């Protein structure tokens, strides 16, 4: 099976879906000849023409709003936000419109739009090219939100998002673009929305998370195994809305010790809901208090190297937190 980069998995998903279905198209800033600022849409305009890889004026609310209109008209648009930090002008369109169209029309209208936005830091992007805005949209009924950590899931989840009859926010991690490569089959497949995946089996503690920090957890887990004989069970949520309740409870029950990780800041983050879910249903199965390791509650990460490093999660931070929890 070929090993490909996370960013190529995203591009391939769009290319294959555009080949498969003439209603699928991508729009956003610089998505045309340039192929996006990260190169995610490279080659799509050459293959599919100007309309289906559509350069949009620099105006995020219109990128989302026009995509929503086209989706209601029966198209399957993929709206690209250049950075998730810049998608806030589109928040009204996403929360007031896309999320509510089916419900408010009593199922008369629907809005099968995909909104892709790169999240995460570690690229010296400073405050406004590094954020994780999941919690802004999380908890909005009517939206599905996915955040893959691997190339395999990125491709399969994006295909599932494009085929989904409802609006899906696709948060791709920009640090993963070229850093993460894994096996991706040539054949068509999807990763179902709403299903988590066990990344690593273990009996001593459970790590639950999504996106980039899971790779730190995997590295830390290998070292803990070698150095301390501690085996971590790692669950990739993959979809953060709707959360895979069953998968979460199963993973938590397996070890009775839960560490939740994400790069988005701790307060009001996805981890709070995961923790509440476990507390509601499994409190007496726990052998330790639920722990969260997340981005600090500051507005966003600084660009200076020590500041950025201090903000971000890494293997060492994960290892320390996991070891402490395992020994609790």
């Amino acid at each position, binding site marked *: 099976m070929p090993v490909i980069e996370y960013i190529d998995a995203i591009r391939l998903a769009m290319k294959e879906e555009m080949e498969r279905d003439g209603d699928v198209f991508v729009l956003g800033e610089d998505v045309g000849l340039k192929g996006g600022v990260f190169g995610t849409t490279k080659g799509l305009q050459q293959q599919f023409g100007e309309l289906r890889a559509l350069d949009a004026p620099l105006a995020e609310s219109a990128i989302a*709003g026009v995509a*929503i209109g086209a989706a*209601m008209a029966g198209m399957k648009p993929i709206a690209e936000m250049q950075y998730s930090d810049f998608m806030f002008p589109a928040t009204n369109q996403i929360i007031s419109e896309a999320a509510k169209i089916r419900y*408010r*029309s009593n199922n008369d209208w629907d809005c099968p739009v995909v909104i892709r936005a790169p999240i995460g830091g570690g690229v010296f992007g400073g405050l406004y090219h590094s954020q994780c805005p999941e919690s802004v949209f999380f908890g909005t009924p009517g939206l599905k939100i996915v955040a893959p950590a691997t190339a395999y899931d990125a491709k399969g989840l994006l295909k599932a998002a494009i085929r989904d009859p409802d609006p899906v926010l696709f948060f791709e991690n920009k640090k993963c673009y070229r850093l993460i490569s894994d096996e991706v089959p040539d054949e068509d497949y999807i990763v179902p929305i709403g299903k988590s995946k066990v990344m690593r089996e273990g009996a001593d503690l459970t790590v639950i998370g999504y996106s980039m920090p899971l790779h730190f957890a995997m590295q830390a887990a290998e070292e803990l195994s070698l150095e301390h004989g501690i085996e971590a069970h790692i669950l990739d949520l993959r979809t953060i809305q709707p959360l895979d309740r069953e998968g979460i409870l199963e993973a938590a029950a397996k070890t009775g010790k839960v560490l939740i990780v994400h790069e988005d800041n701790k307060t009001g983050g996805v981890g709070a809901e995961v923790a509440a879910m476990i507390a509601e249903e499994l409190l007496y199965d726990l052998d330790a208090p639920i722990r969260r390791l997340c981005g600090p509650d500051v507005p966003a990460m600084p660009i200076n190297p020590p500041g950025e490093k201090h903000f971000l999660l890494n293997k060492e931070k994960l290892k320390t937190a996991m070891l402490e929890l395992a020994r609790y």
Partner: protein
Amino acid sequence: MKQAGSVQHNYRHSSLGLSDERVVAMYKTMMMARRFDERGQLLQRAGKVNFHISGITQEPSQVAMGFAMDTENDWFLPYYRDYGFVLSLGMTVKELMLSLFAKGEDPNSAGRQMPGHFGSKRLRIVTGSSPVTTQVPHATGFALAAKMRGEPSVALVTFGDGSSNQGDFHEGCNFAGVHQLPVIFVCENNQYAISMPLSKQTRGRICDRALGYGFPGIRVDGNDPLEVYRVVKEARERALAGEGPTLIEIMTYRVTAHSTSDNDLAYRTKEEVEQHKSKDSLPVFKQYLIDAELWSEEQEADLQTEIRAVIDEANEYAEKAPFQSIEDAFRHVFAEHSGEGK
């Protein structure tokens, strides 16, 4: 305003390509919208419904817009005062009444949304919301879809003068201008955004904003529905010919309070309102039809009786109709099975 020509068969409506039947139908629709709207206000005052929002005096231009469009192919994105517009597109008084009473059979939202939040896929009326102007980029999206698929569809979106200040107005117009999309942006400038007069919203003319986006902006007298018809029809023809969007600013006036929750005399005078009421184009249009020998006082009396009966019946039906069941009221957050709605 010269309403009728002196020579028979040279009436304004004929020269615009409107048949005698159509121009009479326009008048009937305007009157239906007016009477429905008046009933809505009464029902709210009587405590029968919780809320009503009015489009009185805006109906003639709204109906003219609807009659200028192709209901088989075009897309419509109305705003909350557009009773005349949606009636001209085929929505019935019964449907509007079901929405007013928030009943389950309401095709707009099954009684989930406030009245005036239109939507009907059958009638190509796109579901709308309360945060104003979000529908403008949607219209651009519908026009983009039409262009991509080579369909002969034009999207017409309406909004108020207050909405012309929202980012979504500018973003939607600019996008449509860049890609020369078949869309008509219609600002129903009724001079007020709740309590705020136009002078506190903008210093310029709203129609002139089209200049900045590279397409025509036309200001038209909303009390001259035949002129509104002509302008919208031309904009539609331009759109279909691939010549891009048009911004139309319909000059009108809101004679009612913003809604039944507003007391407009807190910010404007009765005299000002009365002055504008005297410019109501509904009686003028009726006189035009009489002058053209298409209408008579007898027909008028019959029409009023007929409308009264239709509204009474719809009123009674909607009042008695059930609300959506609680089990159903929380459905359709997501598709219930794959492929739903396709």
